């Protein structure tokens, strides 16, 4: 099935439990082609599990997940070929150099050698990693490792990007480059699903946002729709998020800490 069929990602009645803990509670979700989709929620709200189920890393207990028209249960390898993934805390092969690592990832996705060379060099230059690409990753800062992880997700020109805290640790210039790159890629038809705790970034970048809480989908839509749902016209995403997730009253907590 081609990537232009229906939605880019389709979750129908998806649920996942870990022993007694409900990680995802019967979620229905559709992500359109070429949009930047934000998945927000407090810690342990089920965001990461949802992202992993989309990628086929975690099997849902019930429901179905379709990515680019392919059921992840039926052919997860075909899904993975078309997806670029950056986990929340990417553990890279630290004994490789940045260049060796990107070369490894390029080979994993069978990128043509000439194209691989061109794309690696372009990305290294764009994200200011030139000059350090021959050093072992173990000596890189957190931000540099994040840049390498991001490049490795972009390298094979995926049709879907799944990014868990993609701008974590990046310097302002690199963060801006990644944001612009994401916008241009989505304009070309690439779909991006990102999870972040930095609500300003989500508000500025995402076309639509889903807010998850205790495994359930609390709200879904663009900023206007979210404001309507929260009945908070003119509010920013942080205020809406805090109201919807019931974590708004933080004054007492701060006062208790100051005692």
């Amino acid at each position, binding site marked *: 099935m081609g990537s232009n069929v229906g939605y880019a990602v389709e979750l129908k009645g998806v649920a996942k439990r870990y022993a007694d803990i409900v990680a995802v509670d019967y979620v229905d979700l559709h992500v359109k082609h070429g949009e930047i989709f934000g998945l927000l929620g407090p810690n342990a709200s089920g965001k990461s599990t949802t992202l*992993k189920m989309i*990628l086929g*890393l*975690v*099997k849902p207990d019930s429901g179905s997940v379709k990515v680019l028209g392919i059921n992840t249960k039926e052919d*997860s*390898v*075909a899904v*993975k*070929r078309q*997806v670029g*993934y950056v*986990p929340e805390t*990417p*553990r*890279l*092969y630290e*004994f*490789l*150099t940045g*260049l*060796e690592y990107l*070369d*490894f990832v*390029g*080979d*994993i*996705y*069978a990128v043509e*050698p*000439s194209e*691989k*060379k061109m794309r*690696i*060099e372009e990305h290294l230059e764009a994200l200011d990693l030139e000059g*350090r*690409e*021959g*050093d*072992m990753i*173990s*000596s890189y800062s957190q931000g540099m490792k994040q840049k390498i992880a991001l490049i490795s997700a972009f390298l094979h020109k995926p049709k879907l990007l799944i990014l868990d805290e993609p701008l974590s640790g990046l310097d302002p210039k690199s963060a801006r480059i990644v944001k612009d790159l994401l916008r241009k890629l989505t304009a070309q038809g690439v779909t991006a699903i990102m999870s972040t705790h930095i609500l300003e970034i989500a508000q500025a970048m995402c076309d639509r946002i889903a807010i998850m809480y205790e495994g359930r989908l609390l709200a879904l839509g663009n900023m206007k729709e979210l404001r309507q749902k929260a009945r908070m016209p003119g509010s920013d995403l942080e205020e809406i998020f805090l109201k919807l997730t019931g974590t708004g009253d933080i004054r007492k907590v701060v006062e208790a800490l100051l005692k």
Partner: protein
Amino acid sequence: MKWKNVVRLVIVDVKSGRLIRGQTLRRYRESRVLQYLLYGGACVLGLAIGLAVGSFYNGMPDSELKSLIYRGAYYLFPSLPTIILISSMVFTMMVQIQRAGVRFSIQPPYWLPITWEEHTLASTLAHLVGVPLVSIILVGSAIAAFSIFLGELPLATFTIFALLASAFLASTTTEILRVLQVRLTGAVYKASGKAAVWVRFIGSLLFLIVFYVVWFAFTSGAGFVTLIEVVAGGQEAVWFIPYLWLGLSLASCMSGLLAQTIIFSLASVLFILALFYMAVRLNARFGLYEPPAITVSRGVYAPKVGLLGKLGFSSLEAAVIRKDFKAFTRRRELMYIFIMPLVFILMPLMQQLGALGEPAATEPSRFLFAWILLGPGAIMAVMLGTMIIGEEGGAVWHFFSSPITARSLVKCKYAFIVIFSCMVTIVCGIIGLIISCPSLDIAIALLIESVLLILALAAVSLGAGIRGADFTEVPRPRMVRPLTALVTMLSCLTLAVAIFSPLLLHAVMMGYIPIPVSLPEIDLSAAVSISAIIAAVIAFVFYRTAIKNAQKFLTKAEI
């Protein structure tokens, strides 16, 4: 110096050491009964040994023999501090080797109000907890009990103090070496540029070889006796070496040379203090030192097509094989897989050369070549197979998120194990050929047998390694569940015997291994052929099992 800080730091160090060894701490405050039981047990055992020897000594009717034992004990006492010094140094160095694989090194908590003196003293004392302290308690209590019968209690007390001082001296030296090693390796990496990776690899191997040569020389029975003889007889000749001053002060005391006793004792105390402050200064200077980045490549990047592609591996499979080669030659915590092949070569070699205190062999052992050729490669295959998936650690998400199939995963991992183990076999085979000069037919048969063992055992251990992979990385990479490792080792041993049995039969028939019953005759080529059939069946069955396990592994990726 705040002693409470030192005590707290020692407790933290001991706890982290136990975590590194894989023990689980269940409670913040634990019962220390079990910890003290070990030391109490050593004390009771030492006292029992001392009392038993003393009673035996007292009940001896022969006064000549009695005087001989008295002289022997008198001869032994001055050499004990030096022996404890050497053994403590070996043990504390071993602890350092054990910690080399710790992912997050134990950094001094420099942001807390702790001085470098407190940190260094705590680190030095923590090195001694465990085997060094147990051996001091055991030897000390035995000496104390026996000295009552000899009427030499003051001398025994002095000896016990000297033992404790020796152990502290050894531990301080290890602390200094540890700090210097970090600084020195950093400087070497910086100076060696692109070759730093190979310098580290070869340097680590050389260190392991030297360490195990010293270890075997000291721990083998005859070697230990030789050590006592050398120390007892020779330390006065080299009195200028400060490490021997504790032993010399004891020897002077026993000879009634009071001035010399005081001089050597004071000199020892000053030497220990000087070493300790040197360790403090080095820690203050380099304790937070970060080794420079290792630069592996410079210049224009050119993607490689490589030999693996021409051998029929896909770009994905070749990438994983290349990555694993780099992992096993660059990751320090994985270099311990080379210990077993080294031990397999060093042990018989030292025995052959008479380095273990036993007379050197006049002609090469008949089984030496078989031992060197078959052992390392097969063991390497088993070890690699069991840990090859678990060694991925947290980076295993690459497999879960990339388009790799179960067949590809097993194919590339199996190929890596076989290639790597065969390389080890070739190196060992060359060493074996030089040492024992076997006949051509035996050499070829054993080489084939070695490859057969690798092919079969790699499949067995890989299947188990996929099933029992443990991705825990902190505080030390576990790689495989202990039970899986044990069961795999036993299974591989059994299967190796099954594969090798036709050749064993041939060896019996040829009279190399004498047995009382007669067995059917078997030709060498027939033995190797039967062996090959057994190995092929085992490899086929377990390779299929490995693929099934890989399918489950990739579809049940709950990371």
